[in-house]
């Protein structure tokens, strides 16, 4: 099956006027399978937007091969299959959402009653149906972001590329958007989005791709990452020593030991050993690890 996105050895360089150049992306390779939701993460200046721009054809890569469902990225044929939400975009201030979407729809090859119905449905879906005939300039940042989301969904694209998708949305809007994006995935769409909101990534993604200074740092499925980050903590009283299977272990002056384990099996082995030695288990905790800590730690290691 053709990957939805295939990036092979991508390089993007910006040239300043005084002969200086900035390598925004270097040797980046990854792929996204159809139907996946993939988060594209990295600190500011990591090269996320440059990669997305290269995929859309907004910047010319100086190296590498990029494909969208087998078509060369940046061509009208590849863009026909993409719904794109830019990181920061204004929508013509003197047009209404209906007029804005009509123009984008016609550029997409849609027209007539079909287009009008799709626009009405989309504006209702993103929650601004009531403001469809207001001028864009009179709208809040959040409402404009909803216009942006609606335009990205025009023509029911197979692939959604979303740059900072929840920017400007309030918590209610974010929740609605998550529901909407998951529904799109259930309909078979592929989602590839960049975000600084790790909570969004956690709730939405099947997989994440982490880049730093224009290079790939890590590529992980969320399920394995969550398993890895999950912490199992055991508090007990007794003389049993579980340091050989614990990740970390501390015994206080009161004789109470707190040990943490990398996985459930190790913890179960420890409980068995404690009971055999006549110890008392006081508390068992299984908690999700922090994605933020993972992100900061991984970036610091890469730096």
């Amino acid at each position, binding site marked *: 099956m053709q990957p939805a996105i295939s990036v092979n050895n991508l390089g993007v360089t910006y040239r300043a006027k005084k002969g200086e150049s900035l390598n925004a992306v270097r040797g980046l390779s990854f792929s996204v399978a159809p139907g996946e939701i993939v988060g594209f993460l990295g600190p500011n200046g990591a090269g996320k937007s440059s990669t997305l721009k290269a995929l859309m054809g907004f910047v010319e890569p100086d190296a590498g091969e990029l494909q969208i469902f087998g078509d060369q990225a940046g061509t*009208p044929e590849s*863009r026909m299959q*993409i719904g794109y939400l830019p990181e920061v975009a204004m929508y013509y201030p*003197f047009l209404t959402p209906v*007029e804005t979407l009509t123009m984008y729809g*016609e*550029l*997409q090859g849609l027209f007539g009653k079909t287009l009008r119905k799709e626009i009405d449905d989309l504006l209702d879906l993103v929650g601004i149906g009531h403001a469809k005939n207001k001028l864009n300039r009179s709208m809040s940042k959040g409402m404009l972001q909803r216009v942006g989301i609606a*335009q*990205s969904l025009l023509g029911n694209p197979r692939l959604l590329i979303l740059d900072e998708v929840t920017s400007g949305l309030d918590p209610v809007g974010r929740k609605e958007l998550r529901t909407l994006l998951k529904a799109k995935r259930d309909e078979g769409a592929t989602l590839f989005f960049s975000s600084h909101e790790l909570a969004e990534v956690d709730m939405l993604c099947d997989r994440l791709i982490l880049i730093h200074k224009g290079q790939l740092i890590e590529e992980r499925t969320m399920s394995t990452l969550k398993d890895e980050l999950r912490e199992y903590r055991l508090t007990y009283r007794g003389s049993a020593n579980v340091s050989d299977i614990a990740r970390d272990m501390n015994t206080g002056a009161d004789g109470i030991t707190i040990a943490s384990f990398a996985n459930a099996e190790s913890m179960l082995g420890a409980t068995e050993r404690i009971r055999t030695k006549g110890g008392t288990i006081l508390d068992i905790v299984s908690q999700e690890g922090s994605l933020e800590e993972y992100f900061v730690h991984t970036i610091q290691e890469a730096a």
Partner: protein
Amino acid sequence: MNPRIYTALARTVVLESLRRKDLWVVAILGFIIILTAGTLGFFGFDGLEIFAKDLAVTVLGLFSTILAILTSSRLLPDEIKNRTLYPLLARPITRGQLLAGKLLGAVLVSWIAFLILAVLTAAALLVFKVKFEPIMLQYLFGKMMGLVVICALSMTLSAYMTPSAGATMSFVFAFGSSMISRALVMGYDSAPEAIRPVFQLISVLLPQVSLFDMGGRVVNINWGPVQAWVMWSLFGYMLLYSSATIALGWVKFRKQAV
């Protein structure tokens, strides 16, 4: 080649211009012209047909050219500055189609402004009992073709330089066209034989906007209309020069990082 792409882009330019009140400014200016002419007529300054026509063609040429340059020279830079370009370029269209659609929009805006002014000016001329003559229609067509060249030139210059520099250059070429042509002819006449092709080349490269301005013939009562081949030649020049100019703009814009 889907015509809907061009009409969708052009409609946006016209709608934005209408709602930004650009065209209303033109209508207000036209109203002032009528008022002035009406006042002159009321106080008995009739019989000043040449003066009235001279004023009319000057005002028409001036305001329509200013609007054409201001509209077309800010289209691309504004799209980039306001980041409205991203959702546009994300559509399955080429950058060439985008340029052509925007150019069509700029031309339509300048034509609408010109025709509003022309109708109001015609009403003003009625005060002076100026009769309609075929040369006036030729003047309108000529001027409209000239506006296409000006729009294409302004858009292309805005792709190569800052919006203000592009607009300034466009004003120089639009309003200084006849002066530049005269200077080139004088230079050609006085230059040594070996240098003359340089003057010819510059003459070909620079826009001959003054060719489209038949205001002089409109003002002078005894000058009749021009022959059809002149109009067709102007049409051919407009097509050729505008296409070449916008193609130059495309060369810069097609790979430009945004």
